[in-house]
């Protein structure tokens, strides 16, 4: 049913389409402009040493400079690693979350182990990963996989646990096996949770990227940031951070656009 939330009711009187579009674009840009303004203000205020906060235009200049060089490759490598790590992590988190929610015995057995491991800092794990996986791509993917899996599994488990039993009951009376219940009831019903899990995992994976690229990365935004850190190149660090933010944002938007159809069945408030 069409829900009328307060936001709707407070909707402004109709305005021409073009002007509305313009208005919307303006609205989307507004917070970014505000941040940019604040950034300049901080520098201008003299509250912090300008040596510690590069000017936005300096960062932009550095961006343009890097864009002509390594940046594209860095972005590509990092995006690829994050994508792979999250894809693998969530693919495993879904069935594991299901098993945890479904098999009470297994839950008692595995749950503590998961809660133990998911808190371990990726940074602290790097030595172990090097020992077992070397310093190649595998090692970096393993770290991102680790972070994504544990971020995702808890969202999945909680999502699955909250499923209303009626649907399982119905499926049983229609003859569904455990596997069919998983594939045809739990999975579709937890699609929204899977999406949440992916979104959380994406965020966590990007945030873990720098740590993962502590393992001997020649390329990647994390490597870029670290190389720059070693030489105190603040403008490059900012370029790296901002690139991470925008790629993550783009991935998030793409994810939601691609999956909007998947949750069309849900009666939700937003």
């Amino acid at each position: 049913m069409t829900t009328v939330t307060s936001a709707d009711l407070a909707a402004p009187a109709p305005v021409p389409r073009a002007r509305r579009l313009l208005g919307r674009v303006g609205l989307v840009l507004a917070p970014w402009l505000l941040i940019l303004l604040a950034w300049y203000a901080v520098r201008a205020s003299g509250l912090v040493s300008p040596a510690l906060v590069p000017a936005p235009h300096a960062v932009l200049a550095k961006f343009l400079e890097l864009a002509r060089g390594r940046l594209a490759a860095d972005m590509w490598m990092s995006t690829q690693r994050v994508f792979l790590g999250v894809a693998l992590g969530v693919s495993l988190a879904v069935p594991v979350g299901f098993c945890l929610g479904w098999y009470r015995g297994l839950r008692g057995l595995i749950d503590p182990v998961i809660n133990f491991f998911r808190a371990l800092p990726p940074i602290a794990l790097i030595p172990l990963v090097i020992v077992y996986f070397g310093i190649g791509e595998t090692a970096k993917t393993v770290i991102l996989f680790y972070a994504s899996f544990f971020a995702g599994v808890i969202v999945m488990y909680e999502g699955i646990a909250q499923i209303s039993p009626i649907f399982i009951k119905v499926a049983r009376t229609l003859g569904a096996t455990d596997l069919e219940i998983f594939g045809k009831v739990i999975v579709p019903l937890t699609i929204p949770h899977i999406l949440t899990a992916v979104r959380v995992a994406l965020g966590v994976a990007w945030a873990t990227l720098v740590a993962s690229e502590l393992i001997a990365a020649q390329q990647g935004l994390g490597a870029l940031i670290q190389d720059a850190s070693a030489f105190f190149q603040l403008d490059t660090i900012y370029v790296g951070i901002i690139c991470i933010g925008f790629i993550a944002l783009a991935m998030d938007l793409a994810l939601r656009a691609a999956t909007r159809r998947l949750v069309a069945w849900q009666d939700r408030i937003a």
Partner: protein
Amino acid sequence: MSLVAPHPDPAEAATAPARIRFEHVSVDFPTARGPMRVLDDVSFDIRNGEFVSIIGPSGCGKTTLMNIVGGFVQPTQGRVLLDGKPVVGPGPDRGVIFQEYGVFPWLTVRQNIEFGLKLSASKVPAAQREETVTRYMRLMGLSDFASHFPKHLSGGMRQRLAIARAYAVRPQFLLMDEPFGALDAQTRSAMQDLLLEVLQSEGKTVLLITHSVEEAIYLSSRIVVVTARPARIRTIIDVPFGYPRAEAVHEDPRFGELRAHIRDLVMQEYAAQARQAVRMSD
């Protein structure tokens, strides 16, 4: 067969093998104030091809009774036998229409009906699936809504969807919990007739929970009247009409008599439950 006959003797009825047998079934639910008895020593049999209706006041324990047969609730005492074997869990032999429908919100109307047919346990051959789904959509008046999600259906349409989904897999047993409660009188009577036709053509054993005395009489071979909570069997009444049954039985004088009798029984039970008078004045 006498017009209004309390069920004679369980031992006597047992000559034909019981398909569903309640053996001294009691259920207690845990509450903050200790266990609450909901079903109390319920024993009766349902034989092959029988249509048994359960009537009793709201909240007495009817759904719980059905849930035991469905395999969703385990009795505290006693047991339910299905073809001689204790019920251990739900299964596709028993089609259930739940009071709260339980239509799958993530599937369209068509996919909901198709769900059971696509399972590995399905007895409906794939070739026939499409036809079955289309037919039930038509029968339920849902054809125009084939690709709608349940959130875009009206209450009565959701209920009809649940019915179609249960019928489509052709279970041996049908357990129906107020399946027509959200339908207008005309749709309801069409659904009743459809149910009778299904029984006729497929031969099912049915347990129906209903609040409509007319519906119980029109459809059942026997009617179990249960007491207020905890539900005990107040009486079991044989319905004196055979199958196939037509609308005309509504006009039969025995229909009116039976209705008056059952209403009276239920009224007594209701009164027992509502000792605390439902009056605003006091």
